[in-house]
């Protein structure tokens, strides 16, 4: 009796897992074989854009509205594809679900501080880069830390499992790394003095430094020690859509809407808009 019940339990478990796995696959291929990628989707007047919800200046959700540089870029893309602003559905993504969301078709494009790298290129297509970020340090205004070399013996904070955290562990072993599950906790700890610096992409740090409650307390060191080109993620096989987005970005660079997107969001802290390097917009595979 006992044995048969055990066997039944295990059997049921295996089946549940198998069904779950199949479900995932079906969804992936099912929506992937739809009409011609992003352009086909856009012709229906709707677009689902995956963005970050917790990064001030880039993608920040307050209530049901989103605001930030990534959001503005998303609006530019939607406009270029002929989708009205009312047809955009914003969807919150976190770093670890961006690839599955694209593959399963839960979002059409991802504009979410999405660094282009080779592993990710294997599963998604990247348009852009629309911005070149770099890892930097956020420190209290009075701090003497001038760059990553000065971190030896100091406590530095980043998000657990993120690329910046990993870089500190491998390249700057003398620094003591504190990890949290969000940058806002890091910034709280920085304000409280439990850590000496917060590290991630300069653009994200600038967003936190520009928040009202921290005005004048923190500064970005301004010596980036990595290159993080931000891309726009979409389905792997959608080369046409990828090229289309690059064309839209090119147009945005010339007609001033890219600069306006910057000035309306991150530019508020006084940083001049970067030049969009249109020559580099050739990442489509």
């Amino acid at each position, binding site marked *: 009796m006992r044995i048969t019940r055990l066997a039944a339990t295990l059997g049921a*478990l295996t089946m549940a897992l198998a069904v779950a*796995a199949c479900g*995932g696959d079906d969804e992936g291929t099912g929506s992937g074989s739809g009409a011609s990628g992003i352009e086909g989707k856009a012709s229906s007047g709707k677009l689902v854009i995956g963005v970050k919800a917790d990064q001030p200046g880039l993608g920040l959700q307050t209530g049901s509205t989103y605001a930030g540089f990534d959001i503005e870029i998303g609006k530019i893309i939607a406009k270029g594809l002929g989708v009205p602003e009312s047809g955009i559905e914003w969807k919150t993504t976190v*770093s*670890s679900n*961006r*690839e*599955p969301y694209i593959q399963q078709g839960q979002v059409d494009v991802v504009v979410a501080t999405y660094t282009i790298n080779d*592993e*990710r290129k*294997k*599963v*998604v297509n990247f348009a852009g880069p629309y911005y070149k970020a770099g890892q930097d340090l956020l420190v209290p205004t009075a701090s003497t830390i001038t760059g990553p070399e000065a971190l030896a013996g100091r*406590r530095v904070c980043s998000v*657990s*499992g*993120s*690329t910046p*955290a*990993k870089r500190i562990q491998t390249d700057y072993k003398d620094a*003591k*790394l*504190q*990890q*949290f*599950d969000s940058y806002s*906790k890091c910034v*709280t*700890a920085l304000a*409280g003095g*439990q850590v000496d610096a917060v590290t991630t992409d300069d653009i994200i740090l600038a967003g936190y430094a520009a928040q009202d409650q921290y005005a004048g307390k923190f500064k970005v060191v301004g010596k980036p020690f990595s290159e993080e080109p931000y891309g726009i993620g979409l389905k792997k096989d959608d080369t046409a859509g990828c090229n289309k987005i690059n064309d839209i970005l090119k147009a945005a660079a010339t007609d001033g809407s890219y600069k306006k997107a910057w000035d309306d969001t991150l530019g508020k802290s006084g940083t001049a808009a970067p030049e969009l390097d249109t020559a580099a917009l050739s990442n489509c595979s």
Partner: protein
Amino acid sequence: MDVFSDPLNRDVYITGFLWILKLTLAGGVGALVLGVVLAAMRVSPIPVLRGFGTAWVNIFRNTPLTLIIFFCYFGLFSTLGLSLADDIDLNNFWLGVIGVSVYTAAFVCEAIRSGINTVPPGQAEAARAIGMTFLQTLTIVILPQAGRAVIAPLGSILIALCKNTTIVGTIGLMESSSAMKQLINENGDNVIPIFLVFAGTFALVLIPTGYAFGWLANRLAVKR
């Protein structure tokens, strides 16, 4: 699964589950000790102690563990300056142990108390009749019988505790869920295999744990 053939990634995976193991062991011991003391308080004849035990259970059982862990870092450490170790990881580990212990102790206390209710009142009366004090009655007569009656629920609590320890990742320990996030972040092309390996490891360890506790409960049950 070539993600896990890379020794660096395997290291992240192993370290993650070692932290879980350590948190479960330390948290389990802490919760058991605290829980037994709380249960003793809740059945004691002194009203202040009874009130304290009841308050503890009601407060910690009804507060999300995330908040408790968050408070351990930003309340105990940041604001009150309770530093438990110089090393960042060890400090976070012990703060996490405090958090999961006080939380789980509330559940252990209630399990033990329900066990105490299974001991026939005659046992306590007989102990009193031969002149034992309250503490003697509790530790020599009641608790040994009560403990053996609640092995199975304590097992469930231990399993829940083991999974709950992943929340300590929110204050920076690279336990399994943070390790999984890191691997997914670096290997965006292998999200589902990575997820299945981590979920599978938990199931692989915890399912036998559940059966072991069921077996123990049968063996140790007080035959009446």
